[in-house]
């Protein structure tokens, strides 16, 4: 069963206009690799050039912050959902 990656609309433009992406991968990082292989423009919006996370783009695996797990190495189970939450400041 695939994994779901949910992007906010602000990032959808870099991902073919879609916010919901079905993907495969055993870790959060592998899931990101899978989606960004189809949408290369998205890659730099999710991870820094060094492959590290940005401090303003947060990943939640089944509603838990991956920074308090193993980061991009956090294992992902079939059917899991990854939600990408970037900082926004509008008011």
């Amino acid at each position: 069963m695939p994994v779901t990656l949910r992007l906010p609309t602000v990032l959808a433009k870099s991902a073919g206009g879609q916010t919901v992406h079905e993907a495969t991968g055993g870790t959060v990082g592998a899931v990101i690799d899978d989606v960004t292989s189809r949408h290369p423009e998205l890659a730099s919006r999710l991870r820094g050039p060094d492959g590290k996370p940005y401090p303003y783009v947060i990943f939640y695996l089944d509603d838990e912050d991956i920074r308090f797990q193993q980061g991009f190495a956090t294992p992902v189970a079939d059917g899991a959902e990854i939600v990408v939450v970037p900082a926004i400041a509008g008011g």
Partner: protein
Amino acid sequence: MSIGRPASELPSLDQEEILRYSRHLIIPDVGVEGQRRLKAARVLMVGAGGLGSPIGLYLAAAGVGTLGLVEFDVVDVTNLQRQVIHGTKDVGRKKVESARDRIHDVNPHVKVVPYDTQLTSANALDIVKDYDLVVDGTDNFATRYLVNDACVLLGKPNVYGSIFRFEGQSTVFCTTDGPCYRCLYPEPPPPGLVPSCAEGGVLGVLPGLLGLVQATEAVKLIVGAGEPLVGRLLLVDALRMSFRTVKLRKNPACPACGTHELKGLVDYVQFCGLRGQEDVTDGIPTITPAELDERRRRKDAFDLIDVREPHEWEIGRIEGARLAPLSSFAETLRTLDSARDVVVYCKSGVRSAKAVRQLQAAGFKRVWNLAGGILRWSEEIDPTVPRY
């Protein structure tokens, strides 16, 4: 958890107030004591814009005794699509004055304390210290970090909300054991990466949704009802009308609320990488609308390039221009002739300044940025071009 004073020190309600708040008084979770807590409460609203409008209206209606309003801006006609505390008659007025008048109309029992100023590192602690809680309705990262740090340093809950286009986020930061804004976002994005609502737009009803989540949380904190939105980040997606919460954790290494190495307020303009970026048009060759008009009248040979997005081009354009959005400018660049004069414009002159830099880097020598963009063109040369 309820904030503020012991029950014995709460102000009483007069007969008019008892009648006005009767629908609160008959809810056991609020009751007379909860209403007296609301009357005693001092809430600081930072921003009286999209989020601040519903927050101010509903906190006033609910009977919050003192509302501080920090806002330096003036009501603009483009605010009215979402900033419902202000009316058409208020265009051009100070927002603090317009909001104060509207709040007094909603509930004359509310004391409004206007701060016609920008919240800064110099004044924030002095302003925030007089309040029980802060509701953050600002529109930029620098002020959000400032509000957060002031709340951490003074031990005030920070009811947070932010919006962009169709989406919003809300939570309550800075409670005794809860996380703060820096636990969630240790650093802001680089300037220019995340567009503001002025640049990227926002669905007018969205701040209504999120602002009322914030107002609800503020009322709950004051009366001590229910479970506050602490340790949970609410994500609202208006396009799918989905509401979900993800878990927020306090970061033990957070310099503000974890290690407490942050002992005072800092320079938030610098922290957000904005120092030296105040004017991206610095050093860019410019042409004024009058000069451009003169060149057109003389029928000079030059290319006029509009670097806005197609949906902005649909709103209006300068006659004779060619559309080449900045987002895909590299492709357009190859089709331009560097031997010809090039004039570039956008809405206000910022994006076109970036395009001019790209052209200069590609070897274009005779390239100018239209000062003030199409807005100034509309103002000074052709009023039939709509402003937006």
